[in-house]
């Protein structure tokens, strides 16, 4: 077993870290305070660096790198700005990936290529007001009418929405079918008549990432925009979320690492009782626990990423990685605020933002409760 990053992975880490520290970090606080998404900085530039199609084949504009490289890129971006990390993760894992996995060759050429090249931003619409963890409760409908499907319904909490051009949407095509049966996936583009945007959420964290409602009112899309077979939507969604979990686990890992780095640096500088607080065993024990959890989370993320690239089954690994990394992020960021004390509670220091950002990683793309269900039911089958 080789636990070392290969040369390409090391170079990718160095490149993304330099880019993130130089270009993304300086505006992270301001974008969070203003709840402002900066598409040029947080997406177009990632496209120029070739990060918007990391894992896809060159023929679709991708870089043909592996999932560990993807995890590294999301982690390094999230280390300075979790909002930028999720912009990339949602784009790649939740929109580009299902089109790659389930799309026809025509759909891949038409929709995947501009996404991989960073020319178009992607989003994924599954969640509805009454269908979160219970994704089978999808109420958005798609009714066949001639050579079109007509969509009606709303989706909420959609990352990248409003700015994204390409959306993978889940809708019920068979009203008679129960629960998670009878749902299909569709590709819908911004600007399609009948497709509009509703409320933009005001959130606790990742405030620089837009989270917006999608509204479908008799939105007609060509039948060629159905993604995968009719009725296979739930399977498309679940497979999509498996990959998304690696992205969110990487985001959580990056948030945790960023907070840990801040806490260590502060502890070495801050003097109380005539000595840096890093010299107190109490503080060292806290930092040791944080670092151990972060390192363990990293290995979980890499294991899931390794399996994904090796073509092995990875649902359980990605659920475990997401569960562990997100809970670690919450603990480590909270502890980081504690270590920075009163200063950590102010917006002058980044750890309070990291703590606010960490919380969502325990909720979206499958709550921690759902992850436990996935792992537990696999164990006890």
């Amino acid at each position, binding site marked *: 077993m080789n636990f070392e990053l290969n*040369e*390409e992975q090391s170079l990718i880490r*160095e*490149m993304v870290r330099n880019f993130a520290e130089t270009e993304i970090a300086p505006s992270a606080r301001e974008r969070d305070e203003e709840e402002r998404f900066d598409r040029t900085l947080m997406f177009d530039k990632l496209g*120029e*660096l*070739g990060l918007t199609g*990391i894992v896809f084949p*060159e023929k679709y504009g991708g870089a043909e790198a592996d999932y560990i490289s993807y995890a590294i890129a999301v982690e390094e971006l999230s280390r300075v700005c979790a909002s930028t990390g999720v912009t990339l993760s949602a784009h790649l894992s939740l929109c580009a990936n299902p089109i790659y996995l389930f799309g026809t060759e025509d759909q891949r050429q038409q929709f995947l290529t501009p996404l991989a090249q960073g020319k178009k931003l992607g989003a994924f619409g599954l969640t509805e007001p009454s269908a979160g963890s219970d994704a089978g409760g999808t109420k958005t409908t798609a009714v066949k009418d001639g050579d079109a499907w007509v969509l009606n319904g709303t989706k909420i909490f959609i990352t990248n929405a409003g700015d994204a051009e390409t959306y993978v949407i889940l809708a019920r095509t068979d009203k008679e079918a129960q629960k998670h049966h009878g749902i299909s996936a569709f590709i819908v583009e911004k600007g399609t008549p009948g497709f509009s945007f509703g409320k933009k959420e005001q959130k606790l964290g990742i405030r620089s990432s837009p989270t917006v409602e999608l509204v479908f009112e008799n939105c007609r899309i060509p039948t060629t925009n159905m993604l995968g077979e009719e009725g296979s939507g739930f399977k498309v969604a679940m497979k999509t979320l498996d990959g998304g979990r690696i992205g969110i686990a990487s985001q959580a890992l990056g948030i945790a690492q960023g907070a840990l780095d801040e806490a260590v640096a502060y502890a070495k500088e801050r003097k109380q009782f005539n000595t840096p607080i890093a010299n107190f065993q109490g503080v060292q024990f806290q930092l040791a626990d944080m670092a151990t959890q972060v390192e363990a989370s990293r290995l979980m993320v890499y294991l899931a990423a390794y399996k994904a690239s090796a073509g092995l089954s990875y649902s359980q690994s990605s659920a475990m990685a997401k569960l562990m990394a997100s809970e670690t992020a919450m603990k480590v960021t909270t502890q980081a605020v504690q270590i920075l004390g009163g200063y950590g509670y102010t917006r002058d220091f980044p750890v309070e933002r990291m703590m606010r950002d960490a919380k969502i990683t325990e909720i979206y793309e499958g709550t921690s409760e759902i992850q436990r269900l996935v792992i537990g039911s696999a164990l006890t089958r």
Partner: protein
Amino acid sequence: MKILVCIKQVPDMESKFKIDSAGTWYDHADLAWRMNEYDEYGVEQAVQVKEQVADADLTVLCIGSEKVKETMKKALAMGCDRGVHVAEDNLSSREPYEIAAIIAEFASDKGFDLIFTGMQSQDRGSAQVGVLVAEILSIPSVTTIVDFDYADGAVNAKRELEGGIRSLVSVKTPALFTCQLGLNTPRYPTLPNIMKAKRKELISIPSEDLLKIEPRQQTEKIYFPEKKGGGLVLEGDASDLADKVIQILKEKTGVLA
């Protein structure tokens, strides 16, 4: 057109350095390594010239152990066409003239039109290698460049001098240039280029094959500066401070009668 850029792998300057057991260099253990910062500007400039001149071939050369190949990959990912690794496991024992002789020996029969090096390395900092290479090859060298403009076999380069003055130097190729910080903005190697770098040619030549001269200097000792006593901070208004300083210089030092 043929271009050569010479790079060195050095430790991250934020690292905690320790003296090695021989007392003649820093200990290599537990350090993070990177491309010498001055060399990054050299690589970027070389790549820019390659992009400007349609038919140019760019070689990156680096001397050191197997480890330095990692840093060479970055240069390949930034746009160099091929890499030449000169295998030398004991790099720190080689003095600048030996390094220059190795590079010059390699370059002697290749007909490079342009050679780029960093102005100095961040570890040894001798600032000699580039100039020595040019002298051995009998080509002009222009050092500490902060601006570079190539056209039709000639270069107009600006050198950075003391006090912010710049001097404009015109030279015909073949010529060698040593690069100062701020010459350009080194590009981020894009992900597709990082992946392509592993397919580029990277040959290894043992340093013994290229080293044909004897060293002329050796490092006797390397050590941290001794800690001096604390400084004195004076406060007050300017004219009072001036008097105080003159008093101290008269009484505590020999610089004023």
